[in-house]
């Protein structure tokens, strides 16, 4: 920071950095200057004129928000001239603003109200009729009252500069100006809720919170958002122990949150609040300790009679690190179960090779800020804005395509540095998307190579091997790379080889970011793709280029589940050789090797063969989330004892022998791992169950029954134990963690992926890669996508393979629906556009060809079964594919596809 400008604000002289605005300089001097249109994360507009101040030597008043200080500047904010100007501007702002603060939802947290109170004239002189507009909902979450709008255009700038949705505009001019989405449209971006927070008055209000409380009744807690891997920091506002609103921590590293994070807490608990036990076909309410003792007793008996391998445990990813850790500790270490899964979205490595690959991938994982300076970015089956929206936002910020991030220096007059970079203008990084879906936002220029996941994986593996061969670093004989660094080939040489033109950047990019979509974890190609990406990192490193891999993980605590649940606690791995040599000082942990965990498919298989006698399911309905539902259902019927902890007594919980109520993730204390590996803290809200997860009570009872008492009976205790066994050096406890901006367990920067000297031990071809290369896993190997295409205005779309719906056949894609599909919001809002039952997405081209319209009912049929659902016509899905999301009760992807098939072909028929 270059200090050095002396500025005097109201006789207080301070020294500020060059480029500081008067508003910020005054704030540093402890002088508050009112402002409405200025927002520290948005470009400067200078329109509200509330911040006018006097600068000595300048006859006219100057706007403090846009005036940059100079040496010796003397600013006065309390002269009569300034006071008169403020009073005049505020009086004018009230000309058309209703004076009904008592019934305004923003009352009490309205800047205009405060300023009129502090600086206003106290008397209205306007006696004419006010300009009026009708109130209108502009989406399921945002309500607009133009009468209250003061035209600060914060929302417009947000949509243009930050969310890149460009979905809010200014219409008409002068005193007829109105603001909102285009007529007939609504706010559709996954960040729409932020405008309710930046609106300084009550013009844009949050429909979920609207009129549920007055702002001064709310208690506030610092917390973080557990709903996806972006790791956003939040402020939770409660009244009487109930969460009413979720806000951003405005001045933190994540100044924006997505709609899922903002409104996703809102699902009301529908389940029973007390445990139920099934006895003689009837369900009985029992106290917690009875239920826990029942479970522990049955587990003990079954374990004694049939061994621990007859017990299966499935846990969802909407769980704290402590729950995941304790679950693994109790079932993996104490009970020695090998059937432990963290759901279909978490990889279950089948062997040692895969396990190590996952560890390597975690070590290689970059941070979003590492993407700064990338000249090329590959989005591999990734749609960051829809999967982990705020991470997507930060990626765009890191690439310089969006502003409003925490990284930029907003003191230095943001918005002055000229136009933002736009992708495709020559200075911006090249973005190539490879996958079945055109990533959002559509306003960002990118080349989209449309291909089904199998074809994407195929292409990436082939190109990765080619690149590695070129770089001379491919250890085909099983040893480390044969060619030394003495004669690395140049990128030019590489480009001359058999590489498709669209992927020239693979080798030529100076710095390449590779963003991998979270849905890859469900995919059978996960390991092949990960290995290829790591191979590319190393090969490019040999070519002298930098690569940043960034895996998005996805919903919930997916990284925590992988790191602490699947792989088990890892002490610091400073170098490759230390990797296996661990846990000298740490308590015993991970005595069951991870490779022995069977995973979800293993559990289903064991149950199908009658080898599983007990199944415990925590926070997930495997039937709603898995493929091949009929088979899973049959298999689970073989299990004689099922215990389910869930927030609904439906689904698998409906038939469970013991049902345990599940607290909301917002009611538990604990930590959470974001996609960058940072730990953030969840601040628990008072609930009838207390701040600690009910799981710990159950696990404690189980351990006691196994005569292995444990002290892991609270989140704090587990956290302390976890810190010790992982060798994490930081001092924060859970409470401090939730107030902090998050902690990197191994210290900042130590895990950053520069790949300057990649470990050679993964360079040899892995078995599954060899299979892929030799075309064993596929009948006909060549990539069928046509990856030559012409540039078009909105970025380039490359025709896809397979042929669009030829013979009425489509490739079935399934996964979690994107945030802006609002599938998650069906318990939050009653908006007619929120889907409350299964939908299928069809590309616009296919819909047009088959004369299917939005909302039409179609039947999707595969060899396995059929489902009927409403059509959503998509502009981002590739032609030739049908997308069926998980997560709706009732029929879903599980009725259509089996996890054994690499590709599922479906037919589409219009119904009625």
């Amino acid at each position, binding site marked *: 920071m270059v200090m050095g400008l002396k500025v005097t604000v109201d006789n207080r002289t301070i020294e500020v950095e060059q480029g500081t605005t008067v508003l910020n300089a005054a704030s540093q001097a402890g002088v508050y200057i009112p402002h409405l249109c200025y927002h520290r994360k948005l470009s400067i507009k200078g329109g509200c004129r509330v911040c*006018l101040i006097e600068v000595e030597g300048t006859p*006219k*008043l100057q706007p403090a928000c846009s005036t940059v200080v100079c040496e010796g500047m003397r600013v006065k904010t309390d002269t009569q001239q300034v006071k008169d100007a403020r009073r005049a501007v505020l009086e*004018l702002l009230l000309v058309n603003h209703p004076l009904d603060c008592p019934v305004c939802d923003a009352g009490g947290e309205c800047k205009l109200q405060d300023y009129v109170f502090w600086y206003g004239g106290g008397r209205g002189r306007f006696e004419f009729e006010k300009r009026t507009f009708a109130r209108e909902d502009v989406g399921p979450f945002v309500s607009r009252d133009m009468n209250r709008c003061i035209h600060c255009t914060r929302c417009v700038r947000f949509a243009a500069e930050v969310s890149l949705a460009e979905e809010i505009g200014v219409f008409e001019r*002068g*005193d007829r100006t109105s603001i909102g989405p285009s007529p007939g449209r609504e706010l559709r971006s996954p960040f729409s809720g932020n405008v309710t927070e930046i609106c300084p008055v009550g013009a844009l209000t949050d429909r979920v919170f609207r009129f549920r409380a007055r702002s001064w009744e709310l208690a506030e807690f610092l917390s973080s958002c557990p709903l996806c891997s972006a790791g956003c920091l939040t402020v939770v506002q409660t009244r009487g122990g109930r969460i009413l609103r979720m806000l951003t921590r405005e001045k933190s590293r994540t100044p924006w949150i997505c709609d899922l994070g903002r409104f996703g807490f809102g699902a009301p608990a529908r389940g029973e609040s007390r445990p139920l036990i099934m006895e003689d076909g009837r369900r009985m309410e029992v106290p917690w300790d009875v239920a826990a003792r029942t479970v522990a007793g049955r587990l003990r008996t079954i374990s004694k009679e049939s061994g621990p391998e007859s017990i299966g445990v499935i846990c969802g990813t909407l769980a704290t690190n402590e729950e995941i850790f304790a679950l693994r500790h109790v079932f993996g270490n104490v009970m020695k179960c090998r059937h432990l899964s963290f759901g279909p979205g978490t990889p279950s490595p089948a062997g040692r090779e895969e396990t190590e690959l996952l560890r390597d991938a975690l070590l290689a994982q970059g941070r979003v800020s590492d993407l700064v300076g990338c000249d090329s970015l590959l989005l591999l089956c990734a749609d960051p804005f829809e999967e982990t929206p705020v991470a997507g936002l930060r990626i765009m910020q890191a690439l310089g395509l969006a502003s409003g991030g925490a990284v930029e220096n907003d003191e230095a007059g943001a918005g002055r540095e000229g136009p933002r970079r736009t992708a495709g203008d020559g200075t911006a990084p090249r973005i190539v998307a490879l996958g079945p879906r055109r990533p959002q936002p559509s306003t960002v220029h990118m080349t989209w190579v449309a291909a089904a996941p199998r074809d994407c994986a195929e292409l990436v593996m082939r190109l990765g091997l080619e690149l590695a061969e070129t770089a001379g670093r491919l250890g085909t004989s099983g040893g480390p790379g044969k060619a030394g660094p003495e004669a690395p080939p140049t990128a030019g040489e590489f480009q001359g080889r058999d590489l498709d033109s669209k992927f020239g950047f693979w080798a030529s990019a100076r710095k390449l970011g590779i963003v991998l979509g979270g849905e890859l974890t469900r995919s059978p190609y996960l390991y092949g793709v990960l290995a290829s990406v790591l191979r590319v990192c190393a090969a490019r490193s040999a070519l002298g280029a930098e690569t940043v891999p960034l895996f998005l993980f996805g919903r919930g605590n997916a990284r925590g589940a992988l790191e602490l649940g699947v792989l088990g606690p890892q002490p610091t791995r400073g170098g490759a050789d230390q990797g296996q040599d661990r846990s000298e000082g740490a308590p015993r942990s991970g005595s069951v090797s991870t490779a022995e965990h069977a995973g979800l498919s293993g559990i289903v298989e064991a149950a199908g063969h009658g080898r599983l006698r007990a199944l415990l399911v925590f926070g997930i309905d495997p039937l709603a989330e898995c493929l091949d539902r009929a088979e899973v259902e049959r298999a689970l019927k073989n299990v004689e004892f099922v215990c389910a902890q869930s927030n609904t007594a439906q689904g698998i919980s409906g038939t469970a022998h013991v049902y345990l109520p599940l607290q909301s993730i917002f009611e538990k204390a604990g930590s959470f791992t974001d996609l960058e590996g940072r730990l953030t803290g969840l601040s628990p809200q008072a609930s009838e169950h207390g701040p600690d997860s009910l799981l710990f009570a159950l696990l404690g009872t189980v351990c006691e029954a196994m005569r292995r008492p444990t002290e892991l009976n609270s989140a704090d205790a587990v956290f302390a134990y976890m810190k010790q066994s992982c060798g994490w050096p930081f001092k924060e406890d859970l409470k401090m963690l939730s107030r902090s901006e998050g902690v990197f367990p191994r210290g900042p920067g130590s895990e950053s992926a520069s790949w300057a000297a990649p470990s050679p031990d993964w360079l040899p071809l892995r078995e599954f890669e060899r299979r892929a290369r030799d075309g064993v896993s596929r009948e006909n190997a060549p990539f069928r996508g046509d990856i030559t295409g012409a540039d078009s205005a909105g970025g380039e779309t490359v025709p896809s393979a397979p042929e669009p719906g030829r013979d009425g056949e489509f490739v079935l894609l399934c996964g979690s629906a994107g945030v802006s599909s609002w599938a998650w919001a069906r318990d939050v809002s009653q908006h007619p556009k929120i889907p409350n039952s299964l939908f299928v997405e069809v590309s616009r081209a296919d819909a047009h060809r088959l004369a299917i319209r939005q909302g039409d009912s179609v039947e999707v049929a595969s060899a396995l079964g059929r489902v009927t659902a409403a059509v959503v016509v998509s502009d981002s899905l590739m032609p030739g594919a049908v997308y069926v999301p998980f997560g709706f009760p009732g029929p879903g992807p599980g009725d259509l596809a089996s996890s054994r098939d690499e590709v599922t072909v479906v037919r589409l028929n219009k119904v009625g």
Partner: protein
Amino acid sequence: MAEKILLRNVGIPGSERLEVCRSRGGYRALEKAVRELRPADVTEAVKKSGLRGRGGAGFPTGLKWSFVPKDVPGPRYLCCNADEGEPGTFKDRVIIENDPHLLLEGIAISCYALSVAEAFIYVRGEFALGAERLEGAVREAEAGGFLGRNILGSGFDLRVRVHRGAGSYICGEETALLESLEGKRGLPRLKPPFPASVGLYGKPTVINNVETLSCVPSIVQNGPEWFASIGTKGNTGPKLFAVSGHVERPGVYELPLGVTLRELLSEHAGGVRGGRRLKAVMPGGPSTPVITAEHLDVRLDFDSLAAAGTALGSGAVIVMDDATCMVEIALRLTRFYRHESCGQCSPCREGLGWMERLLDGIESGRGRLSDVGLLLELAAGISGKTLCPFGDAAVVPVQSTIGRFREEYESHVRTKGCPLKPAGVRIP
């Protein structure tokens, strides 16, 4: 002034055509500039000539040019502001429609001086004929080698594009003009940064008025000393006066800067219509404060008018005789400004509608004496508080008519109506 400079070709049949223009000496100054002068010489000549911007502010043109940074890589632009939208102003239109080549020559020489390879003419949307003639003239000039690639064999390239506005008054404000040219809403930008450093598409940009640019050929042709000999000290060169209102011969008159108002009105415009008494004059368009008959001997130049408490503005001399109601004038103009306010900053957006309603009340007999004071307070709350000069301009009619004719406002209130109009007449 016997010899006309800016209106030299006006009235000559076919004056908009290249051959007629050439036959009357058109593009000779451009030939001289690109063949004999270095770009810096042209800028120096313009500086020495004392030419001040004719768009209204009267800023020295050569000085404005010198603000363009020399060492910034990438393109730089020149924009000709032909969005002549100020009520009562119609001087640029005469040049655009009758002598487009004079403007193009001025643009070409200025671009040569500024090393600009691309210039834009932002022409008022309503000037359909003018836009057509400019486009035709650009084509002719390109075909004739006066624009386009390698102009007159000098190696200097210049592409001129004609862009038609969409009818918004505020787009005559130079930064709103740039926004509009970029395809955005025509909203004035915050200054600084000034267009000379961050202008069109973020690049250094000079914006000059049609009349200003049209002065440049004669400066190059006849020398800055000749130009400076016209007019008065510090207010040099010819000026177009657009005289409108209650005079016998309204029209555009080219006279040296510093001519007296009396000379302009009585010798050229034929005096007040029907022999009535002069009541008020807006010497430079509606955003300049009114002056009265006692100011008839004021010199019409930047400095003299400023000393008289008003401004030369665009040179739109609006003359009002003694049958004119000043409240009505203020009301009509405030209504215009309210309608044209872009709405991005609070005082102008919210204040002008209030003022209009107060004025309407006074004019139609519903006013109160306190409304006159309130009008002045509101005007003070807008003036100097807005993002662009529009707010300052918009309250001038109210401030200056109350300043000089307060009695007339008060008699409206007392007599509950306009004393100069039969009862029941309403301002549309």
